[in-house]
Every structure is written in structure tokens, then in C-alpha cells.
């Protein structure tokens, strides 16, 4: 772990002691810090190395550290070399604080987020000042209930207490934080701290600053102390007050005296010259409300103003007689002027910041604001009449502190906590008090609730919210039925019921809270219509079913208009105009006819069922593009697709024709054969005979073969029709034909000669 310049502990506290062990062992530890999701910050503890080395083997520098092991009281006097590049952490037997601590982080809207758990050391790489960007404050980190991360706080604070390299100032801050948050301190820690407190109180060389912090710790821990120690301190402090001429001296000494007065219940402790002290402190003030640190130093700061106010209040409380009212009035004027220098962020939070940049120690706005408010509260508690401070600025300051979240720096954290405690005691900001304690009986009235669009009509007026004691929240019992969906702004006003407490508490006026009332929006009567542009009459109209999945196809040409209409109604039946509704088509038509998809988008913040739907298709028939119309951009040609294989074409076979029923075909077949029979019967009736058939053997044979040959040819033809192809048929036919020719010639010539013989005979 590296020692950085802007480390909280070591950069400012060059005299910080280092931690001791109880056995001479050295622990080398590394820790890491990171920003988790949503801006949450988490600690992590990466590696620990325990070097079981006896003390004498260490290097001279570390040996000198280790020689302090046996005497924890020596802790607070050791000077740490600031150039140490590596810090050595040592185990201490107070390991109870290292057990697992769980913390939860809450988002601004109340949701729980990640849990941080485990045993860690604190990490000191966080930015010391409140210099994170402004939009960090608007991120949904845990900030509305900032004190839920108890584990984390405990870890952070107890870790450096654990290291025992704290000064009393840090101990005071840590313990005050614990006190405000209500975190228990362990007994060993208290004991150890008390020891150091007593040591400081008893030593004669303690500075007023040490005394101041020691007394502060004493007040919290209530370490028992002897009367004699206080006596000695009182006299030395009174001497300091008399001789002091710087603001810080005044502050610490007066503060110590005041703490002693509170702790020892000595009522007769007074400042010897209260008026003179008051005047000398006041002399350091400037006209613009700020204070100088000393008369020699011309620089002034707002932080110093806070310190001065606290010191003045101490003077007043320690004064034996009344301070002159004129002087108190002068101080009040200074406070008013100081408030004029308040700065604000855009979201209504106020803070104090330093104007000059060449200060010795530049305090951040957090420290500055907290010191100012501390001074204010201290001052207002001692003067008799109340300070009239602008309530909205106090609110703004409180919002600033609530909006910070958990600062990384323990000092800042202390400032935050302390300030909020001050505010708690003096002012009340929200329905729950700033720290979440129970609110006194209040009436919270919902003054107005109006919709954001119609700011004049308020729907609810002056409704009292009921208080639920168990949850300590105020709720509005019955929302009137006319509360429709939409965006509303609720304006709250809180009044304290008890009149006597009105002076104690200041209530924020008229807080505005935007509220979205969401609900289901019904969409009815959706129609898509194609209109003839000249007449405006509806040509085709189709009902759309937006809840269902049906698509609609509509055709139109360039002379017609397309109109889509639907009605949206809230659950209560009022007309509703959605925040966003879009009907989508393609951007540019390029005069291409064809089919276009239609999309409908309807959305709004308060609509729970916003929709984005494909409605259907519109067939557009567009005319021919004119001469100079822009062509559609050429499709990007991929060189691989141009010469590659094209889409496969599957042949679609011709659908077979319808055939007649089979019975009809068979009937006609029979019918076609019938004339043959008719022919044969006719032949018989004609008296056909076979008398001319040759009777002698050879011609008869040939005659028979002739007839058979003809029959064979016909049979060949039948075969050809059934299964043969033409070539075999022709081949066979050649042979048969030649054969038939020969036979036929023989037969017929025989017949011819026979008939010629008959004719001549």
C-alpha cells in the first residue's frame, strides 16, 4: 500500500504514531479500493503477509518501529517519517472489530442494493476532499438514508483506530460519529483511548488543541478523571485565553474550558475577561462575514468564520455576566452577511465554499459548510433570541449533506454527521428528521396536487396525510377517483402540531415531488383507412386488432392517403394523448411499387403497456418515376455473389390433365370394336367364301404363310406400340417385309395365273 500525498491520515498528521504489535510480528498488508457498479464504493482486502520475524532482524528503520512494541503509551509520541513508502500494519489483539461486518447500501428510491461484507482494513486512497464531479451526486448511490451502511462506517473508522495511529482529534471525530450513529464501542477500544486521553490531560506539555480533543473524547467516553487534573488545565487555559491573539488559540482554549465546565459541572468556571475576549475575537472579523485567522494574517476564510462563531458562543456561555447585546447584534449581522455568500447547486442544495485558493490548508466545501453550521448552532444556542436564518438555505444545506452519500474521508464523514446532528437539534427538514429519529407530532398536508400539464387546476387540495406510528410515515389514505394516469406534482407542507415546538423546529415549505401515476392504457377502435385524396372519402377501411396478432394488408396508389386512427383511453375513461406515438414506414420510397411494412409505436411514461407492433402491409402502386427522380441506391455488389452459383431452380412439372372416367373410355373402346363385327357380319351376308383358296399343297402353304406374315407384321406393330422402340421395329419390319414380299409375290402370282387360266379357259 502506498503512501500518497493526499492521504487523509498521513498527509496532515506528520506527527502520527505508528501501530505497535503485541508480539513483535510484522504484518504487511495491501488493500484496494474500487468503485463498484452504480458508483458504490467498496473496500477490498487483497493480500496479507505475516512476517514472523523477530524484532532484531528488521532493518534499522523498522526496528525502531518495532522497539515500541512493549509500551503502547509511547504510541502517541513517535514521529513517523513521512517518506515511508510502505506502511506496516500490525495486528493488535483487538480483533473483535475485524469480524465480519455486513452492510447494506440503499438506493435513492429505497431499493436495496449490493451488500458489502467481510473483514477489511480501511482504505485511504479515497479523495480527501469533496471534489467529485457534480453528477456523481445525482447518481443513485446510497444517499437518501445515508446511515444504513453501518458496517462500512464501522469498518472505516475502526480500522484506523485499530491501527492506533490516530491522533486525539481523529479519535474525537470517530467517537462523535459513533455517538451520533449509535454504534457501540468496544471496551478495549474505550480503554485504550481513555488511557491516551488521560495521558494527555495529565501531561503539562499538551497544547490547547490536544487538550481540546482529549476533553472531547473524555466527554464521549466518560473516562474517569481526577479533579486535580482539571484544575491544572483550567489555569493554563485561562492564561492562554488572556494571551492569545490567533483565532485557533482562542478556539481551542475556550472550547476546552467550555468542555471542562460541562464535564465537571463546575458552575463557577468563568472567563476572567469575557467581554475583552469577545471583542478581540470579533476584531478579527471582516465586513463580508468571513473571519481572519489572526491579526497578522490578512487572509480570511469561511471556515474560520465557523470556528470564530463557535469560539464566541463559548465566550458567551463562559461569561459571568451578560455580554453586551450590541455586540451580539453585530455578530448576527456578520452571520447574515455570511449567508449571502452561500453557493448553491442547481438542484437546490446550498453549501459554503472558500473563495481563495492560496490558503495554507484548503478546506473543501464539506468541511467549510460543516464548520459554519457548527458555529451557527453553537451561537444560536447561547443567545437568547433566535437567529432568523433563511429556512430554504438551511434546507439546502441539509440536502447537500444528505446528497453526498458516504464521503470517503473520515474527516468529511465526521463533518457530515456532526452537522446533521446539529441540524437535527436545531432544525427539522423532512417528515422524518434528518437522522431518522422519530418526528414529533406533525400534520403533513398535501397542499396541492396538480397535473404537470395543467398547473392551474389542482386535483387534490389540502388533504391531510395520516400518520402511521409503526412505520413513522405519512400516507394519503384514499386517492380520489379522479386520479388518472399522468404526471403529477405533489406539493407537501408540514406544520408542527404543537405550537410550542414551532420555535424549535423549522419546517420545509412546499416541497415538490413529481409523481408518475402509471396504469394500463386501453387502445380501442383502431382503424386503418385508405382515403381518396381529392374527396376525402374512405375507400377501404379495415379494423385493426392491436391486441391480437393479426396483420392487415391494404393497397393504395399514389393518389390516395393512408390514415391510421385509434383511440386511447385511460382506465378511468379519459382521453389520453401519449407522449410518443410513431407510425413507421420506410424512409424513402424511390417510386418503387410493392409491399411496405407498417409499424406502430406507442409509448409514454405513465403507460404500462406501451407497444411496438407490426400492423401489416400496404401495397403501394406508385407511378413511373419522372425523368430526374433519384434512383434507388444500387445494391452493394459483392464480387463473390456475382459469379457464384445462382439460386437453384427446381423444375415444376406440368400438372397432369384431367382424364375422363375409366368407364367411359372402356365403353367407347367396345363401341369402336363393334364396327369390326359389323363388317364381318356384312361379309357373311354377302356370301363371302374361300373358294379361291389354293388347294394344292405348295401354293396353299405359301398362302397360309402369306397370311401369317401379315398377321406377324400387325403383331409387330402392336408390340411396337406397347414396348418396342422404332428402331427395332424397323429392323424387324425389314426382315418381315422382305419375307412377306417374297411370299406374297409367290402367292398372288399363283392366284393370278390361276385366274388367267380360268379366264382363258
Amino acid at each position, binding site marked *: 500500500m502506498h503512501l500518497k500525498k493526499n492521504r487523509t491520515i498521513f498527509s496532515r498528521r506528520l506527527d502520527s504514531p505508528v501501530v505497535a504489535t503485541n508480539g513483535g510480528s510484522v504484518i504487511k498488508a495491501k488493500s484496494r479500493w474500487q468503485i463498484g457498479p452504480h458508483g458504490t464504493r467498496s473496500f477490498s482486502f487483497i493480500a496479507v503477509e505475516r512476517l514472523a520475524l523477530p524484532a532484531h532482524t528488521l532493518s534499522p528503520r523498522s526496528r525502531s518501529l518495532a522497539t515500541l512494541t512493549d509500551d503502547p503509551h509511547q504510541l502517541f509520541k513517535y514521529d513517523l517519517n513521512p517518506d515511508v513508502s510502505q506502511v506496516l500494519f500490525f495486528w493488535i489483539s483487538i480483533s473483535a472489530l475485524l469480524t465480519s461486518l455486513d452492510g447494506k447500501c440503499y438506493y435513492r428510491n429505497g431499493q436495496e442494493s449490493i451488500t458489502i461484507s467481510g473483514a477489511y482494513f480501511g482504505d485511504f486512497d479515497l479523495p480527501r476532499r469533496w471534489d467529485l464531479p457534480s453528477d456523481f451526486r445525482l447518481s443513485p448511490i446510497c444517499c437518501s438514508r445515508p446511515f444504513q451502511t453501518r458496517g462500512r462506517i464501522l469498518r472505516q473508522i475502526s480500522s484506523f483506530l485499530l491501527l492506533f495511529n490516530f491522533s486525539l482529534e481523529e479519535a474525537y471525530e470517530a467517537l462523535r460519529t459513533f455517538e451520533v450513529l449509535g454504534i457501540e464501542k468496544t471496551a478495549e477500544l474505550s480503554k485504550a483511548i481513555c488511557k491516551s486521553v488521560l495521558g494527555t490531560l495529565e501531561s503539562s506539555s499538551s497544547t490547547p488543541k490536544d487538550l481540546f480533543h482529549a476533553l472531547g473524547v473524555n466527554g464521549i467516553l466518560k473516562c474517569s478523571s481526577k479533579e486535580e487534573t482539571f484544575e491544572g488545565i483550567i489555569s493554563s487555559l485561562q492564561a492562554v485565553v488572556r494571551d492569545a491573539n490567533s483565532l485557533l488559540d482562542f478556539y481551542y482554549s475556550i472550547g476546552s474550558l467550555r468542555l471542562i465546565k460541562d464535564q465537571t459541572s463546575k458552575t463557577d468556571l468563568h472567563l476572567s475577561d469575557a467581554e475583552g475576549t469577545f471583542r478581540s475575537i470579533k476584531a478579527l472579523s471582516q465586513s463580508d462575514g468571513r473571519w481572519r485567522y489572526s491579526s497578522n494574517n490578512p487572509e480570511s476564510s469561511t471556515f474560520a468564520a465557523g470556528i470564530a462563531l463557535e469560539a464566541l458562543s463559548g465566550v458567551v456561555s463562559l461569561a459571568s455576566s451578560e455580554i453586551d447585546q450590541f455586540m451580539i447584534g453585530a455578530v448576527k449581522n456578520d452571520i447574515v452577511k455570511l449567508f449571502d455568500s452561500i453557493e448553491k447547486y442547481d438542484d437546490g442544495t446550498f453549501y459554503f465554499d472558500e473563495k481563495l485558493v492560496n490558503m495554507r490548508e484548503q478546506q473543501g466545501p464539506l468541511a467549510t459548510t460543516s464548520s459554519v453550521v457548527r458555529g451557527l448552532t453553537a451561537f444560536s444556542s447561547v443567545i437568547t433570541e433566535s437567529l432568523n436564518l433563511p429556512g430554504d438555505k438551511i434546507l439546502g444545506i441539509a440536502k447537500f449533506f444528505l446528497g453526498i452519500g458516504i464521503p470517503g474521508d473520515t474527516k468529511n464523514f465526521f463533518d457530515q454527521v456532526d452537522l446533521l446532528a446539529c441540524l437535527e437539534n436545531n432544525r427539522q427538514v423532512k417528515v422524518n428528521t434528518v437522522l431518522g429519529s422519530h418526528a414529533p407530532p406533525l400534520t403533513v398536508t398535501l397542499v396541492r396536487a396538480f397535473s404537470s400539464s395543467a398547473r392551474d387546476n389542482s386535483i387534490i387540495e389540502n388533504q391531510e396525510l395520516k400518520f402511521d406510528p409503526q412505520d413513522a410515515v405519512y400516507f394519503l389514505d384514499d386517492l380520489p377517483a379522479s386520479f388518472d394516469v399522468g404526471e403529477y406534482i405533489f406539493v407537501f407542507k408540514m406544520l408542527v402540531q404543537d405550537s410550542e415546538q414551532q420555535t424549535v423546529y423549522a419546517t420545509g415549505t412546499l416541497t415538490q415531488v413529481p409523481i408518475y401515476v402509471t396504469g394500463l392504457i386501453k387502445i380501442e377502435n383502431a382503424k386503418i383507412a385508405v382515403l381518396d385524396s381529392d374527396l376525402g372519402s374512405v375507400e377501404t377501411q379495415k379494423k385493426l386488432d392491436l391486441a391480437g396478432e393479426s396483420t392487415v394488408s391494404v393497397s393504395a396508389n399514389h393518389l390516395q392517403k393512408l390514415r391510421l386512427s385509434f383511440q386511447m383511453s385511460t382506465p378511468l375513461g379519459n382521453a389520453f394523448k401519449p407522449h410518443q406515438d410513431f407510425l413507421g414506414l420506410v424512409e424513402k420510397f424511390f417510386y418503387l411499387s410493392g409491399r411496405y411494412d407498417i409499424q406502430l409505436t406507442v409509448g409514454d411514461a405513465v403507460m404500462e403497456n406501451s407497444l411496438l407492433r407490426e400492423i401489416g402491409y400496404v401495397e403501394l402502386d406508385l407511378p413511373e418515376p419522372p425523368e430526374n427522380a433519384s434512383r434507388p441506391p444500387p445494391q452493394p455488389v459483392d464480387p463473390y455473389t456475382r459469379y457464384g452459383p445462382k439460386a437453384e431452380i427446381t423444375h415444376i412439372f406440368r400438372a397432369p*390433365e384431367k382424364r*375422363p372416367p375409366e368407364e367411359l373410355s372402356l365403353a*367407347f373402346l367396345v363401341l369402336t370394336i363393334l364396327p369390326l363385327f359389323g363388317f364381318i357380319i356384312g361379309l357373311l351376308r354377302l356370301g363371302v367364301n374361300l373358294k379361291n383358296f389354293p388347294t394344292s399343297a405348295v401354293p396353299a402353304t405359301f398362302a397360309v404363310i402369306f397370311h401369317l406374315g401379315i398377321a406377324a407384321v400387325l403383331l409387330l406393330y402392336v408390340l411396337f406400340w406397347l414396348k418396342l422402340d422404332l428402331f427395332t421395329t424397323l429392323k424387324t419390319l425389314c426382315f418381315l417385309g422382305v419375307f412377306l414380299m417374297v411370299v406374297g409375290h409367290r402367292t398372288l402370282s399363283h392366284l393370278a395365273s390361276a385366274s388367267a387360266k380360268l379366264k382363258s379357259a
Partner: protein
Amino acid sequence: MARSTGKDAQALFHSLRSAYAATPTTLKIIDLYVGFAVFTALIQVVYMAIVGSFPFNSFLSGVLSCVGTAVLAVCLRIQVNKDNKEFKDLPPERAFADFVLCNLVLHLVIMNFLG
């Protein structure tokens, strides 16, 4: 008038009938064959008229075979008819042989076209 027309038609029909009875038998056989062929063609046309001409080639081949064979038979009758002076020297067997040969060729073509 109608009666005379009717009587004339009847007289004409009777004379045709008697004249036809005088034709030799062979010619009557050929006439019968021609009638048979034409009749078959007619039946095929009627069938086509009923069911449509989807396999048109089949229809054509069927009709054409009938008509072709009828035409060849008519040629045979002309050549065989003794009263015909042109073909006096042609022996009827030769005519018949031509008839058979032409029929066979015709039917080859028909079978091919039939599909």
C-alpha cells in the same frame, strides 16, 4: 309438291339400290370395308367430342388410320373394278398387294404417332 319430292326420292333410292345390287361381290366387300372404317372414325370423333382432345395425337392417329385405310380401299376398288378402262391391264392381285403394302406402311406410321 312434297309428295312428288318424296316419291322422287324414293324412286331414286330404289334405283340406286337395284343398281348397286348389280355390282360384283368383291366390290361390295370393299365398300363394306370402307363403310366400316368410316364408321370407326366417326365413333372416335364422338368420343373426342365427349372427353376433350387431351391426347390429341392419339385422336389424330386413330382417325387418320381409319380414314387412311378407307382411302386405300377406295383406291383398291378403283383398280379392281372391271368397268374402269384405265386399269384394264392391272391384275387385281397386284392391286391387292399394293393395298396390303400401303396399309402396312400406314399402320406403322399410325402406331408411331399413337404415343
